């Protein structure tokens, strides 16, 4: 059974149609990359999966239920973790916000919660920073803390919105290596601009621009690596591989990568 099932989903902000007739199935332990242009509806699709926005048509099932009912199984890492950096808060407190409402002590946090949060920090390699003020971390470190916060609820699905947008190249690689590690146990969905990096780690890709085209790219990995020691490849090749219809410059360059559905 797929872990997320989306059927004929449409969504509009007032009269402006953002997503049209979306169909998508995510299987357990997939690493799905959602790519596409700015304003193409990527973040909106995530927010629909999280039940933040209400959709007008179609169905979304997360673990067989409406998204809002499955929230405790979803870990979410929002875009833009650089806001509110003046806020006086320690790393461990941020992580503990990830706990789902359960039994809570009258004051402060329970021992279990602290242990669990420390464990999540350990998992992302930030255990030494538990007592540090969040504002003094670098962008990459802060992003790890946000991932730890999402892991705190022991999610089965981890959803990240542009996780590397404000991080340097080394930091980006580290984040994706971390996600690869987490992917052994958790389904991962990542929205990103950075298609070349993400396709190296993802096994499936969905291109969203009002409509969605979906590709299983796990068997294409070998092709990528024939590309020499430079593991990045040009966007034209990628778009072609993803069957982008408006990319006519690359029609004949390397037809074996064409994956038009």
């Amino acid at each position, binding site marked *: 059974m797929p872990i997320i099932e989306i059927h004929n989903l449409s969504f509009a902000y007032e009269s402006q149609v953002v997503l049209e007739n979306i169909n998508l199935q995510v299987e357990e332990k997939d690493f799905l990359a959602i790519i596409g242009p700015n304003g193409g509806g990527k973040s909106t699709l995530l927010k629909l999966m*999280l039940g*933040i926005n209400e959709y007008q048509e179609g169905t979304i099932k997360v673990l067989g239920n409406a998204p809002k009912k499955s*929230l405790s199984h979803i870990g*979410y890492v*929002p875009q833009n973790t650089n806001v*509110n950096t*003046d*806020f*006086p*808060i*320690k790393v461990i*407190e*941020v992580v*503990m*916000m*990830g*706990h*789902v*409402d359960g039994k*809570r002590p*009258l*004051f*402060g*946090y329970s021992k279990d919660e602290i242990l669990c949060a420390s464990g999540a920090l350990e998992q992302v390699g930030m255990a030494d920073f538990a*007592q540090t*003020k969040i504002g003094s971390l670098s962008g990459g470190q802060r992003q790890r803390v946000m991932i730890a*916060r999402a892991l705190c*609820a022991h999610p089965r699905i981890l959803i990240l919105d542009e996780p590397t947008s404000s991080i340097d190249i080394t930091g980006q690689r580290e984040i994706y290596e971390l996600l690869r590690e987490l992917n052994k146990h958790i389904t991962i969905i990542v929205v990103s601009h950075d298609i070349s990096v993400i396709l190296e780690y993802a096994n499936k890709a969905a291109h969203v621009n009002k409509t969605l085209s979906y590709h299983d790219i796990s068997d294409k990995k070998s092709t990528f690596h024939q590309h020499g020691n430079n593991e990045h490849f040009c966007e034209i090749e990628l778009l072609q591989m993803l069957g982008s219809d408006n990319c006519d410059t690359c029609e004949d360059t390397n037809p074996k990568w064409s994956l038009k559905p």
Partner: protein
Amino acid sequence: MIEPLLEALQFEFMQHALLAGILVSFAAGIIGSLIVVNRMVFLAGGIAHTSYGGIGLAVYFGLPIFLGASLFAVGAALLIAALTLKKRHRMDTFIGLIWAVGMAIGVIFVDLTPGYNVDLMGYLFGSILAVSTQDLYFMVGLLVLILAVVTLRYRDILAVSYDSEYAGLRGVNVRFFYTLILILSALTVVIAIKVVGLILVIAMLTIPVYIAEKLSSSLFSMMFLSGAIATLFTLVGLWFSYVYDLTSGASIIMVSAVSLGVFLLFTHKKT
């Protein structure tokens, strides 16, 4: 220097003033912290000025001033909460509007009250030497309420203040806590009017908080440090006010502002 102060403390109005100063400073420190981290400073200013409408109504209908101002301020807070939760991008326009209309209502009702020569300045700039026993009860009650809310619901308030979208996803009722913070702000503003007046209240809610924010690594310590700093400023301000015969509210604010200047000078040197 100390002697005249000890002498003054024998008067009941001076004891009341000191007690009121401490109670209000602590409330302002705690609530001011929440106002600052939630970026609600302009909003709190709006509520402070709007509450003058409540003062005018209370004067006209012969109600206790605190009651009139509190009801009106809480009403304004609820209105602002409803508007900002719906139309965030027009928030500043609405606040400016409510701000001015509230004051206008106050002025008109004071005008309409026959034979009443209310000490308008007392509400605008504070009248800490005129604190009644009843006022003190009200202040104690509010401080107890604030302490109860911020200790028992600390996690929810922290989550909503730090990242409201995420808090919502984790099952925290964001609207409820946002509104609660605004209501507590409104009530704090009302008691602070007694001490520094409604024009100066914003300084009391922000200056100690700004200093405390730099020195704290958690919201909890920031709230209590702000309370302590605000108390210090209030006591020193009161002392100046008594010794040099100055308006108490303005003295407190000037002490705060000068201290902030010194603080910034020293912290700036370090970096």
